[in-house]
C-alpha cells in the first residue's frame, strides 16, 4: 500500500442533468450487439462486456486506459436509441413542464406582467439556494396548469394527462416521446426559472433520452461459477434486453415496417429502459430473471438500508477489528479490556522505526508470528514484507523509517463497542490487557454504559492506526472521561453488584479486623500505603481507598445530628475518613449525589478511575472474606403471618365481589363519560393493587433485617423488595394491554370459570407467591402477561430505533461555534448559547452548578 500525502480536498459535488452531448463524450464504446462473449469466451467488440468499458478479469488490460484490474476505474459505454425514450424518474417533472408550457410556442403560460413580478424573486432565491424558490415555484405551477390560453401566442391549451407510468395524453391523442421532446425543446431558457428549473442544470428535453449511458463493466462484474460457467450481473441482463430491443426497433424502422409493430417495439424499449432505472414502479410489472427472481436494477442499488447510501457510504466496513463473546473479570481495571492471545496476534499497530526504538521493535520482528511479534514490515519504498518468509533478511535490513506492524500488547489503546450504539458511551477507549482464553474480558462495573450482560453478548474491538487517533482516543474517549453521562450530568459508571455488597458489609456497624486480615484485604485490593495499626475498623479500611483530603456530606441538614450520634444514617466523609454512614449503592453507585461524582469533580477522571478500580477489588475481596450465600429460606414467612396475608387478600376479594354484585344489579354509579363496565374495571384495579402492596408490607416486616437476601437488596447490590414479595407473598394482578385479563373463551378467560365471572381470580389475580406455587389457572394468566410484555418489547425496539435514527439525522450537523452560538451545517443559528446558559451537561453537577456543594466545601474547612 502506497501512502501519499493528500493535498486536495473535495470542495463540493454538483448535480446536473446529463446532456446527450456529454453522454456521447463519456461513452468510450457504442454498444451494438447484445452478445457478450465469443466462442473462446473473449468479450465481443461493441458488446456489453467490451474491454473498452474496463476490465474485470485479472490478466487483461483495459482498452481505454491500458490499466489492469486494480487500477482501471471502468469507463462508460453508450447505446444510441433508435427512438427517444422517457426517463422514468423525470416523468413527474416532464408532466409539470408540459402542462405549464404552451403547446405551440413553448413559452411558459404566464403573462409578461407576472413574469416580471416573479423573475427577480426567483432569481435571488435560486442564487441563495433558498427554499422560498420551491414555494413560489409550486404556486406558479398551479397557476400555469389551470390556464386555458397562452398569453404569448393566444393558442388554446388542451388538457394533458399522464397515464402512468410513462404515457402522455393530450385530450385523447397520445403524445409520443418525440412529440414530448419537441415540446420541451421549445421552452426558452429564460422561462425555465418559472418551472423551478435552474438554467445551469441543463435543458428539459434532456429528460427524454436519445442515448443511454451504459455503466462500466466494473459496476456490473460477472462472476465465474465453480462449473466454469459465467453468471452475469442483473444490470447486464437488463442492458442485454435493451440492446436487443433497440436493435430490432432500428431494423424495423429502416425496413419500413408497419407503424403498429414499430409502436409496439418502441413501448417495449420504453419498458426495458424504465425497469433498467427503477424496477419497483407501481403499474409496471417488475422485470424478472429467467428463474422468476425480480431483477435488482439501478435504483434498487441506491435505495434503502442495503442500498449504496446507507450500506456503503454512510457506513463502511473496516479493517483492524475483532468480535467475540464477552465475559466478566473483576480483577482487571474498568479501563482495561481483556483480549485473547489469538486476537492480539492478529491485530496490529503500525509503529515507525526510529533509532530509539529499533531494538525494542526488533524483538517483535524476531518473534514473527509468535506473540508478541509482528506481522508485516513496511519499507519506505512501499513494499510490504510478510514475516513468514525471510525473517532473517528483514531483520538485517530493518532500519529507521520502516514501519513495523506489531501485535497488540498490554497498554495499547483500543475502541470497544457494543451494539446498539445508542449513546456515545457505547464506544469507549480501553487499555489492552492480553489474557488467555477466547473471550473479551471486561470489569462488570462498565456493563452499564454498554448495556451489556454476559449471557452470550458479543462486542467489537477496533484498533486506531494513527498517532492522532490514539491521542484523541486517550483524551476524549477513554473510559475514565466518560464516567459522567452527558444526558443528565451524573456518573453512569459506578460500583455495582458484589462491589456494593462488599463495601456495605465492610462499613456496616463497627466491624473490627485484625492487622493480618486487614492487610490481606488491602494488599489484594492494590492498596499498599497501610497505616501502622493493630486493629482496623471496616470504615477505616474503606477510607484508605478515598483521597486523603476528601470531604463529603450526603445530606447537609441531617449532618450535625448524624455526626454526633454516629448512627450510620447518612454518609459523612471528613479528610478522607468515613466518619459515619454505611456505604451502599447510593454512595458509590452510578447516579446522582454519589461520592464518585464528588471525586470526579474535584480530582478528575484519572483519580476517579483509581477509586473505582479499588472499590471493585476491595468490594469483591470483602465478599470473599466474609463469604456470602443466599437461600430460599430467606423468603420464608411464618404461618401466622401468612395467615394475615391470606385474610388481607380475601378481604380484597370480597370487596371486589361486592362491586361486581353492585354492577350486576345495575346499581353501580358510572363515572361521567364512562360505561358501568369501565367504571367497574377502574374501581377494581386499585383495590387489588392495594391488596398486593399491603400483603407485601406484611411479609416484608418479617423478612427485613438480617437475612442475607435482604442484605443484597438493602445495599442496592441486586434485587428489590418487590422481588421478595413476589416470591414470599403474592404475585398480584396480571395485566394484558393495561387491563385485567378479559379474553380467551366466550365471556370467560378460561374454561375453569363460569361464563360472565368477573371476580378477581377469574380475571388474572394471582393470590399466591412464587414459592407457595401458582394454581394452574394462575399459571396461565402469568404466561399471558409474560407473553404480552415480550410482544410489547418487540414492538418498542424498532419504534424507538427509528426515532433515534431520525433524531440523529436531524441534529447531527449541529455544533457549537467558536462564538458560543449553536448552528447547523449551513450556519443557521439555532441557539445563541447552548441550553440558554452554555453549560455543558457532562461538565456540570447533574445539569447545573451545585451551589450547595461549593458552600459546603468552604464552610467545612
Amino acid at each position, binding site marked *: 500500500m502506497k501512502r501519499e*500525502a493528500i*493535498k486536495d480536498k*473535495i470542495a*463540493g459535488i*454538483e*448535480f*446536473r442533468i446529463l446532456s446527450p452531448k456529454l453522454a456521447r463524450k463519456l461513452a468510450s464504446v457504442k454498444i451494438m450487439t447484445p452478445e457478450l462473449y465469443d466462442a473462446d469466451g473473449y468479450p465481443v467488440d461493441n458488446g456489453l462486456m467490451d474491454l473498452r468499458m474496463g476490465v474485470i478479469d485479472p490478466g487483461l488490460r483495459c482498452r481505454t486506459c491500458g490499466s489492469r484490474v486494480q487500477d482501471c476505474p471502468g469507463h462508460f459505454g453508450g447505446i444510441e436509441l433508435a427512438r427517444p425514450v422517457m426517463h422514468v424518474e423525470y416523468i413527474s417533472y416532464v408532466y409539470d413542464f408540459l402542462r405549464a408550457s404552451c403547446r405551440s410556442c413553448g413559452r411558459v403560460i404566464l403573462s409578461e406582467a407576472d413574469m416580471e413580478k416573479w423573475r427577480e424573486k426567483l432569481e435571488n432565491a435560486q442564487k441563495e*439556494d433558498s*427554499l422560498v*424558490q420551491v414555494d413560489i415555484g409550486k404556486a406558479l405551477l398551479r397557476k400555469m396548469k389551470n390556464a386555458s390560453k397562452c398569453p404569448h401566442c393566444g393558442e388554446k391549451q388542451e388538457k394533458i394527462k399522464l397515464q402512468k407510468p410513462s404515457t402522455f395524453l393530450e385530450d385523447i391523442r397520445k403524445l409520443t416521446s418525440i412529440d414530448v421532446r419537441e415540446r420541451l425543446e421549445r421552452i426558452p431558457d429564460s422561462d425555465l426559472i418559472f418551472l423551478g428549473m435552474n438554467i*445551469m*442544470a441543463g435543458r428539459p428535453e434532456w429528460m427524454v433520452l436519445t442515448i443511454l449511458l451504459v455503466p462500466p463493466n466494473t459496476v456490473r462484474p460477472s462472476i465465474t461459477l465453480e462449473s466454469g460457467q459465467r453468471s452475469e450481473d442483473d444490470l447486464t441482463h437488463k442492458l442485454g434486453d435493451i440492446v436487443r430491443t433497440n436493435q430490432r426497433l432500428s431494423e424495423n424502422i429502416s425496413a419500413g415496417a408497419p407503424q403498429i409493430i414499430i409502436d409496439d417495439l418502441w413501448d417495449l424499449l420504453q419498458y426495458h429502459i424504465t425497469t433498467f432505472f427503477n424496477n419497483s414502479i407501481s403499474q409496471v410489472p417488475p422485470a424478472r430473471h429467467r428463474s422468476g427472481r425480480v431483477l435488482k436494477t439501478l*435504483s434498487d442499488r441506491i435505495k434503502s438500508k442495503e442500498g449504496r*447510501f446507507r450500506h456503503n*457510504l*454512510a457506513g463502511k466496513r473496516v479493517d483492524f477489528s475483532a468480535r467475540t463473546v464477552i465475559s466478566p473479570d473483576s480483577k482487571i481495571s474498568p479501563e482495561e479490556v481483556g483480549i485473547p492471545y489469538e486476537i492480539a496476534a492478529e491485530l496490529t499497530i503500525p509503529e515507525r522505526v526510529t533509532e530509539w526504538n529499533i531494538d525494542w521493535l526488533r524483538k517483535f520482528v524476531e518473534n514473527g508470528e509468535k506473540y508478541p511479534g509482528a506481522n508485516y514490515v513496511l519499507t519506505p519504498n512501499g513494499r510490504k514484507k510478510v514475516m513468514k518468509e525471510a525473517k532473517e533478511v528483514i531483520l538485517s535490513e530493518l532500519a529507521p523509517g520502516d514501519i513495523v506492524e506489531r501485535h497488540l500488547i498490554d497498554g495499547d489503546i483500543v475502541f470497544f463497542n457494543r451494539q446498539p450504539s445508542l449513546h456515545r458511551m457505547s464506544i469507549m477507549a480501553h487499555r489492552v490487557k492480553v489474557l488467555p482464553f477466547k473471550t473479551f474480558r471486561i470489569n462488570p462495573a462498565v456493563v452499564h454504559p454498554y448495556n451489556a450482560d454476559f449471557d452470550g453478548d458479543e462486542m467489537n474491538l477496533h484498533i486506531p492506526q494513527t498517532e492522532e487517533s490514539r491521542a*484523541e482516543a486517550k483524551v476524549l474517549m477513554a473510559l475514565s472521561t466518560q464516567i459522567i453521562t452527558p*444526558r*443528565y*450530568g451524573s456518573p453512569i459508571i459506578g460500583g455495582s453488584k458484589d462491589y456494593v455488597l462488599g463495601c456495605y458489609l465492610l462499613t456496616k456497624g463497627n466491624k473490627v479486623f485484625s492487622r493480618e486480615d486487614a492487610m490481606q484485604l488491602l494488599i489484594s485490593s492494590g492498596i499498599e500505603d497501610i497505616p501502622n495499626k493493630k486493629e482496623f475498623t471496616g470504615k477505616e479500611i474503606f477510607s484508605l481507598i478515598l483521597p486523603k483530603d476528601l470531604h463529603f456530606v450526603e445530606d447537609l441538614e441531617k449532618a450535625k445530628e448524624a455526626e454526633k450520634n454516629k448512627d450510620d444514617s447518612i454518609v459523612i466523609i471528613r479528610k478522607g475518613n468515613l466518619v459515619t454512614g454505611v456505604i451502599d449503592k447510593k454512595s458509590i453507585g452510578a447516579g446522582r449525589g454519589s461520592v464518585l461524582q464528588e471525586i470526579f469533580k474535584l480530582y478528575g477522571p484519572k483519580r476517579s478511575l483509581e477509586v473505582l478500580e479499588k472499590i471493585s477489588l476491595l468490594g469483591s475481596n470483602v465478599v470473599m472474606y466474609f463469604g456470602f450465600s443466599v437461600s430460599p429460606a430467606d423468603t420464608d414467612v411464618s404461618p401466622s403471618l401468612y395467615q394475615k396475608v391470606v385474610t388481607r387478600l380475601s378481604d380484597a376479594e370480597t370487596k371486589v365481589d361486592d362491586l361486581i354484585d353492585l354492577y350486576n344489579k345495575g346499581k353501580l354509579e358510572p*363515572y361521567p*363519560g364512562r360505561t358501568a363496565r369501565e367504571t367497574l374495571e*377502574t374501581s377494581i384495579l386499585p383495590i387489588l393493587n392495594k391488596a398486593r402492596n399491603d400483603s407485601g408490607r406484611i411479609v416484608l416486616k418479617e423478612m427485613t433485617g438480617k437475612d442475607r437476601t435482604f442484605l443484597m437488596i438493602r445495599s442496592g447490590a441486586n434485587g428489590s423488595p418487590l422481588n421478595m414479595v413476589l416470591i414470599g407473598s403474592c404475585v398480584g394482578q396480571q395485566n394484558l*394491554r*393495561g387491563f385485567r385479563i378479559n379474553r380467551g373463551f366466550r365471556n370467560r378467560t378460561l374454561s375453569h370459570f363460569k361464563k360472565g365471572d368477573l371476580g378477581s381470580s377469574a380475571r388474572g389475580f394471582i393470590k399466591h407467591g412464587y414459592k407457595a406455587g401458582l394454581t394452574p389457572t394462575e399459571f396461565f394468566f402469568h404466561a399471558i402477561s409474560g407473553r404480552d410484555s415480550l410482544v*410489547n418489547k418487540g414492538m*418498542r425496539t424498532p*419504534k*424507538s*430505533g427509528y*426515532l*433515534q435514527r*431520525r*433524531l*440523529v439525522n*436531524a*441534529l*447531527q*450537523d449541529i*455544533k457549537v461555534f*467558536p462564538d*458560543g452560538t*449553536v448552528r*447547523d451545517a*449551513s450556519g443557521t443559528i*439555532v*441557539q445563541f448559547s*447552548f*441550553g*440558554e*446558559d452554555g453549560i*455543558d*451537561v457532562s461538565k456540570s453537577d447533574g*445539569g447545573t*452548578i451545585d*451551589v450547595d456543594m*461549593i*458552600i459546603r466545601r*468552604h*464552610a467545612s474547612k
Partner: protein
Amino acid sequence: MSKKIPSTIEKRLEERIKLIDVDTSTKKKIRKEVETEFQRMQVTSGEAVGVIAAQSIGEPGTQMTLNVFHFAGVSEMNTTVGLPRIIEILDARKTPSTPSMTIYLKKKYAKSEDDVRKVAAKLLHVNLGDVADDISVDLLNFRLTFSLDEDLKKTYAVKVKEVIEMLEKVFKDCEFKMLKTEKIRVKPPAEADVKDIYKLKVKLLDTFVKGILGINHVLPMKTESGEWYIKTAGTNLKKVLEIEEIDTVRTSSNDIFEIGKVLGIEAARSAIIHETLEVLNQQGINVNIRHLMLVSDTMTVNGEVKGITRYGVTALKDSVLARASFEVPTKHLFKATVRKEIDHLRGVVENVMINQPVPVGTGIPKLVYRSEKDGAKKRDKSSK
C-alpha cells in the same frame, strides 16, 4: 470569552449563602468559585451538541412504555404517554391523539371545589342532545317539542333561554318558542316534509348549545400543593383564554400547533420542551432540559413547527447527500439535478461518505503543510 452567570444560579447562591455562618471573605471566595465553576462548565467550541441531544433523547426510548393509555388521576381521562407521545410530539403531528388542556384559575375563583366546578361547567361543550329530554315529534301539527332535563340542566348550568338563542342562530329558518311548561317548541320551515322533520331532530340534538366548542370533558383536580385546576379532554385554547376566571399565564393545551397558532412560535417551542419533559419525567427518565431545548429549537428555527421527519427538519437541509442518506435517496438525487444543487459537504454524513474528516470537534482545526515548491507557487499568485 467570559459569560455572565445566569440570574437563577445567582439567586440560589445568595439564598443559600445567607444560611451559613461564615465571614465575608469566605463568602467572597464562594462567589468567586461559583463564577469559575460556571466558566469551566461552558461547552467547548466544536462540541457536537446535536448528536448528544439526539442520543440523550433516543437512548432511553427503549425503556419507555408503549401503552398508549394511562389513567390520569381519577381515571376518567386518558392521555397518551410514553414513547407514542414522544413520537407524536417530535413528528409534529397536526393534532394530538388525545387532545387535552390543563386550566388554572385565578386565585379568587379557585377557592373551593364548588367554585371550580362552576367554571368547569362553563367550559364544557354541551350539545342539545346532552341535556334534552322528552323529545317528541308531532306529525299532525308538524312541530317538534322537547324539554331540558332538570338535573342535567343544573349540572351543565344551562338555561332554556340561552339554548333557544343558540338554536336560533344555527337554525335560522325554524321558529323556537318557549312554552309555559319550560318546554321548547320548534316550528320547522313551511316547506319541510316528514323526512325533513326527522332529519331536523337529529341535527338539533347534535347542535352545540353551551360551553366551549371542543371541550368534551372537564375534570376538576387538585395539585399536590392543594390548588384546584381543571383537566379537559379536547382543546380550544383561544376560546378558553377568553374566559374571565382563567389564569391565562399557566393555562395550556397539549396541542403544539394550537399553541403555536394562538400564542406564537416561542410558545410552541416552550410547549415542545415541556411536553416532552413531562412524558420523560412520568416514565422516570432523567434527561437534561438543554437537550430538549436544542431539539425544540431545531424544530422551530424557521418560524413554524417542523417535525423530525423527512418532510420536516430533514427536508430543510442544504446538503443533497445528507437528505439522500436519510430516506428516499433517488428522489432527492433527481430533484438535485433539476435544481442544479451543489453539495458543499459541510455536514457530517457528507464527509463520512467521501472519507474526509468530519467537521465537528477535533475534525474542525486544520493544519496545512505547504511544501517549498507549492508554497512558492502560491505566494507568487497571491502577490499578483
